[in-house]
Structure formats: structure tokens, C-alpha cells
């Protein structure tokens, strides 16, 4: 049976970094101030590095632009996307904390049906600190929530659950649709507050959106590579999708859990559907090959760490997707580069990071 804790959720302010990719400004942080101020921010500035990003007063942050990324990674910087929010994964790599929360700069605080502001970060922490249940679907959703439990018929041996690696939040207002759906339904808004968190069953893939996402960096960090997107690449707006599919395959293999549902944030800005269509165009065709690929991936027993799983995935991407398009060979290379860079910046405890120079202060 699930024993839900009625104790207040720990803040984890020294164990969690908030990673925000941005190209314009960070005014949206004003609205999040009551919830984000205790935490350290890692801001990844995309686009023109000579531009100054204004960060509201009172936040503790470190900021990286393209120059910093090039300086710190040297030739390995090629794996970090340019002119695409995929660059945010650089923030995951340089963080030294156990947990990451990432949010887009057009996402604001939403209200629950009672009118109260939703503390999204607190909910993500609750999700990450309570187990997942990927081996059998609980019809009352997350059994560890206060007021819920495992239903009749749920095997007792499965009620301990597994550690939660990812907490995938949702969005009210502008839904995360692809370009064709945006073009057909430009006025549709997500107004339905679904009061549930659930574990995505083992063996099931899902479209992971990076707008409102938290994960345990120690459990799954190296799998959160957001791919090669943006400038000079034939595809965009599939960065989080790619990371999600890789992550799910690896969490399934390692016996970790992925949750989706609460918390909601308020997504304010609808991107231009025509621009999106151009970016997604290849992705729309390629995903028809990608999904069967990920659904049939099998990782060897010897792949016992995230890095080993990821490198094995890269090998299979090259072998099976290279023929779909040459892009996937480049992507496979970048996946390997990413792991190399990750391991350099995150040596096993006791080692010294060998990146070029210390991270810049504000």
C-alpha cells in the first residue's frame, strides 16, 4: 500500500538547478519569483553572444552564451545546437546538482481550478521524490498522492515502485501542437485541468515536451541530450522529442520511472505555424521511421549505466537510421560527443573536470 507523506515538500534549493534557454529576455521570471528565487539558475543564451540578456534582480544565476560553450567544450561544442532551444542541454551538462527543472521563457504561472497559483516546481519535486509504477497501470493514477492508493488487483510485490527519473508537466492555454495541427486549429486552447499524475508504462513511448520538465540528473542526465537542431540542421522542434524517446528506452531498460501530468504551467506564446512547419517538415516524415526504431530497440544486459546505454543507442542509430538520412550519422556522432563531454565535465566523484576554465559568474 502507498503511504503518502503529509509532511511539507522539501525545497531542495541546494540540490536543484533551473535551466532556462533564452534568446530575448527573462522578464517572465518576475512572475515566477515567489517560487524560483531560492534556486540557482543556469541560463543558456542562444543566438548572438554579443547581446546582453537582462536577468531580473535578486536571482542567483550563471549565464552561458555561445562563446562560453565553445570555450568550455572546444571541438566538442559541435554537439550543442545553435539557434534552437535545444542548446539548453548544455545547462544540464554543466550543472552540479542532483535535479534539473527546465522551463521555457514564454511559460508562466498557471492557476488551478480553485484559482490558486500553481507552484509547478513543488509539484515536480513531489513527483520526483515519490516512486513510479511502470509495471502495472494503476487506474487511480499516482498511488502515492494524498487521497489515492493502489486499487484492488494491484500486485503487492509491485507496490514499492521504482525511482522516478523524469517528471513531465503539462500546459494550459496554448497547447503543444505540431505545425499542421496549429494551422488547422489556430484557436484551440487547452482549458482542461486534468488533476492527475501517472507513470507511463514500461514499453510505451511518449512525446516528451521540454517546456515544463524536471528530471533526476544523477539517474538519467546523460540521456537528456537534445540533439542537433536549428542552424545548419535539416530539422527543428524535435529536440525534446528525441531526448524523450532515448530517455524512455533507457529508463525502461534500467528499471526507472517516467511520470506525466501535473503540474500545469500557462503557455502564453504560440509560435508561428509557418515557421514551425518548415522546421518540422523533415521530422514529420522521419518520425514514422523513428518510432518503430525506438519501439524495437533492445539494449544489452551489460549496458548498466546511462552512458553505456546511450552509446549503444548511438551505435544503433547509426546502423539503422543512417539509411533514412545522412543526418542520423551526424546525430549519432554528436550523441557520442555529448557523452564524452558529459563525462569530462562530470567525472566520477574524486575526479577533476577537465573543461577549459571555470564557469563564468554573473
Amino acid at each position, binding site marked *: *500500500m502507498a503511504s503518502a507523506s503529509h509532511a511539507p515538500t522539501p525545497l531542495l534549493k541546494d540540490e536543484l538547478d533551473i535551466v532556462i534557454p533564452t534568446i530575448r529576455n527573462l522578464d517572465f521570471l518576475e512572475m515566477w519569483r515567489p517560487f524560483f528565487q531560492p534556486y540557482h539558475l543556469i541560463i543558456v543564451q542562444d543566438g548572438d553572444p554579443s547581446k546582453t540578456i537582462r536577468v531580473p534582480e535578486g536571482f542567483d544565476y550563471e549565464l552561458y552564451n555561445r562563446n562560453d560553450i565553445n570555450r568550455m567544450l572546444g571541438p566538442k561544442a559541435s554537439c550543442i545546437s545553435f539557434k534552437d532551444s535545444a542548446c539548453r542541454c548544455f545547462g544540464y551538462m554543466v550543472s552540479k546538482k542532483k535535479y534539473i527543472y527546465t522551463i521555457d521563457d514564454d511559460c508562466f504561472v498557471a492557476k488551478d*481550478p480553485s484559482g490558486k497559483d500553481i507552484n509547478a516546481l513543488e509539484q515536480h519535486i513531489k513527483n520526483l521524490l515519490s516512486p513510479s509504477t511502470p509495471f*502495472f*497501470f*494503476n*487506474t*487511480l*493514477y499516482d498511488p502515492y*498522492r494524498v*487521497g*489515492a*492508493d*493502489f*486499487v*484492488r*488487483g*494491484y*500486485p*503487492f*510485490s*509491485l507496490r514499492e515502485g521504482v525511482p522516478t527519473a523524469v517528471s*513531465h508537466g*503539462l500546459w494550459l492555454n496554448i*497547447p*503543444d*501542437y*505540431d505545425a499542421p*495541427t496549429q494551422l488547422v*486549429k489556430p484557436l*484551440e*486552447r*487547452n*482549458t*482542461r*485541468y*486534468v*488533476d*492527475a499524475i501517472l507513470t*507511463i*508504462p*514500461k*514499453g*510505451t*513511448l*511518449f*512525446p*516528451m*515536451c521540454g517546456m515544463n520538465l524536471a528530471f533526476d540528473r544523477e539517474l538519467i542526465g546523460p540521456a537528456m541530450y537534445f540533439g542537433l537542431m536549428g542552424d545548419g540542421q535539416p530539422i527543428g*522542434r*524535435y529536440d*525534446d*522529442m528525441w531526448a*524523450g524517446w532515448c530517455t524512455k528506452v533507457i529508463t525502461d531498460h534500467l528499471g526507472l520511472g517516467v511520470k*506525466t501530468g501535473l503540474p500545469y504551467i500557462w503557455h502564453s506564446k504560440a509560435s508561428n505555424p509557418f515557421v514551425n512547419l518548415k522546421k*518540422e517538415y523533415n521530422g*514529420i516524415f522521419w*518520425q*514514422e521511421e523513428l*518510432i518503430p526504431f525506438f519501439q524495437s530497440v533492445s539494449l544489452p544486459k551489460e549496458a548498466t549505466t546511462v552512458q553505456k546505454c546511450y552509446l549503444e543507442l548511438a551505435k544503433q542509430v547509426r546502423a539503422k537510421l543512417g539509411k533514412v538520412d545522412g543526418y542520423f550519422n551526424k546525430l549519432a556522432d554528436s550523441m557520442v560527443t555529448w557523452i564524452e563531454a558529459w563525462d569530462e565535465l562530470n567525472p566520477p566523484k574524486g575526479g577533476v573536470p577537465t573543461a577549459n576554465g571555470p564557469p563564468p559568474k554573473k
Partner: protein
Amino acid sequence: MRPPSLLSLTLDSALLHIAHIADLSHLPDHLVIDLFRRTLSAGKLTEKVLKLFLATGCEEIILAVQLLNIKQPIVPVLPTRCSESEVDIVIAALQPNLTTFFEAWRPFFSRFHIIVVKDPDMAENLQIPTGFDLKVYTKSDINGVLGASSINFSGHSCRYFGYLVSRKKYVISIDDNCLPVKDTAGSTVDVVAQHMANLKTPATPFFFNTLYDPYRKGVDFVRGYPFSLREGVECMLSCGLWMHNADYDPMTHVVKRNQRNTTYVDAVMTVPLGAMLPVSGINVAFNRDVLGPAMFPGLRLQNEGKHRWDTLEDIWNGLCAKVVCDSLGYGVKTGLPYVMRSDAEAGKALESLKDWEGVKVMDDVLPFFQSLKLSRTAVTVDDCVKGASWNCT
């Protein structure tokens, strides 16, 4: 004859969309009244629409409602999504007095043929109010139709006899201690309409949609959902949920004796391919034409009693159904609709614990179903069930 005025055309158009209008308070009273009259004449007054008009605060409308003796809840406007010829409602009677039950469900059940199966172990006569198209099956009917059979239809299993004798395409079955519940907007949930909507819209088992059922109004497939999977597959089983007294095992009932389910989760979702779930028979609907052969009581606990927590027949049934659906490319949904389940029996769980063998059963049952692979030559539900039973032995 004068052509209709622009105002009249506008009101007619508003009438056409009356079910989707959220707020009329900005309209002047005389227009609200005119619209109300048209709504009454067109027979489009539902509970939700009535609330809409009353919310305007227009005194004439409030007066008209009183004079016409319009009461809430009222018989809903005939749902357009399903016809009486398609649906049977099957109720297992485990208590003799079903008056409260049927009166509460009357607005939603009165259109349909109802099959009531009396628990063969129950001696008392059933009390059922009149005004329903209803047939009662008792122990003698069960014996008469089946003679000697290895299936034990006593207790909660008696409902499966109802599935057997039904001739309709869809069956909806609800426990006799459940009543209609109100959703978060305060409207009474039409369990029939929701189950039918679930069964008549596709399921999406091959990829998880993070906005849940993409066929619901106001939502769609999200970015990253492959287009080739957006047609979905036919949904064969719709598993509803319960407010108040949730369907827990007896151990959980004892430990959390004061816990009640108060969270109304406004979602329907497809249970993904390969994922198993515990299907609760308390509130369930299925496509009998196709899935019927898989809906049988296979597992009976040794000391199976009359409380829901004494049984696992529905759990076993659900696992069979899910394996069959996965094998044949059909879908299973879970979530809405909710019913309100009374806690008349909730305090008695402690008595059942003494003889309860349920602790270990699922630990053996689940791995069996998870590893069950049905032959590719089994292309009908019938073949699948036979294949599964072969694996069982």
C-alpha cells in the same frame, strides 16, 4: 409572409449551438427569454442548458421554470450518440432492494433494455420500481439455460450471465451500490453517454498522447505524435472509475478506513499496448459483439464473498480482455465516467481479511498474463480466449 429578421436568424443560430454556449448574461432580458422559449420548443433543454439560463438571473425565466414545474435533474435530451437498439444495461443484483438505485439512474437508464441478474445465492425477492424495459434472470434461468456448467455464477459473477444472454452490440454494467455523481461543473454525469463516447471513438494504444484522449472536444494529438498512428483503433472496453468509496483491496480498506476518493480526474485515456491494468467491474462497458467471448469469470477466490474486495473475477477478466485486445489490435480506455460508490460495506473489510487469499494471487496471475503470447493464427476473440486457456493449463 415576411422573411425572418436578422435577429431571428441569430437566435436560431444560437439555438443550434446552445449546448456549447458558456454564458448568456450579456444578453438583454427579452432576448434571453426569446431564446429560452425557442429552446423549450426545440426540446433542447438539458440540465446544463437550464443552468445557463438560470445563471442570467432573468426573473421571467425563473418564473417560467417555476410555473412549468421544470425540475433538476430532468430527463436528459436524448443523446444523439447511441440508439436503444445498440445497448443493454446489465445489473447484478446482490441486494434485494434496488429501488434507490433504479430511481437514481432512471434519467439515464430508462431508454434502454435492462438485464438484471439476481445473485443465485440470494433468497429474497427483488424490489425494482416500474417504468423500465427490464428483464430479471434468476437462478432457475441460469440453470435452465446452461444446465450443469463449470462456471459458478454466484455473487458478483452473476453479471456474466447477463452478458451471455444479451443480444446487443454494447453492454454497460454498474454495481448495484453505485449512484450517479456530479462532475466538477456540478452537472450529473451521464454514464451511458460517456461510456458510449469512449467506445465509439478510437483508442490510441501505440503511442501515449500526453493530452490524453485526443478525440475529446478541445484537445488533439500533441507535437511528436506520429501521423500514421493518429487514426487509432477500435475501442472494445471502457473502464470507468468511482468517487467516494474507491475500489481497494480489503487490506487498504482497513488501513485507510477514512480515506475517500474526492479527486475528479477529467480525463479518458487509452491504456497502452503491452501495459496491463486492473479492470474493476464496478463501472464498465464493452463491445459485446467483438469482445463478448473474453468477458467471463475465470478466477474465483476460494472464500469468495459478496463484497467487491472478496473478488478478483473482474481483474482476471480484464487481464484476459487486455491481452486479447493487444493481440488483435483493439483498444482499452480508462478514466471517465465516474460513479458515486456508497460505503455501505466499507467498514466490513476487517472481517474479510481473516480468510483473504488475495495477497499472493496477483503476484502469480500478473506475470502469467504479461508473458502470454497468443498465436498469430488466433484472429478472433474466440480463438484468443481458447489459446489463452491452453496456455493456462
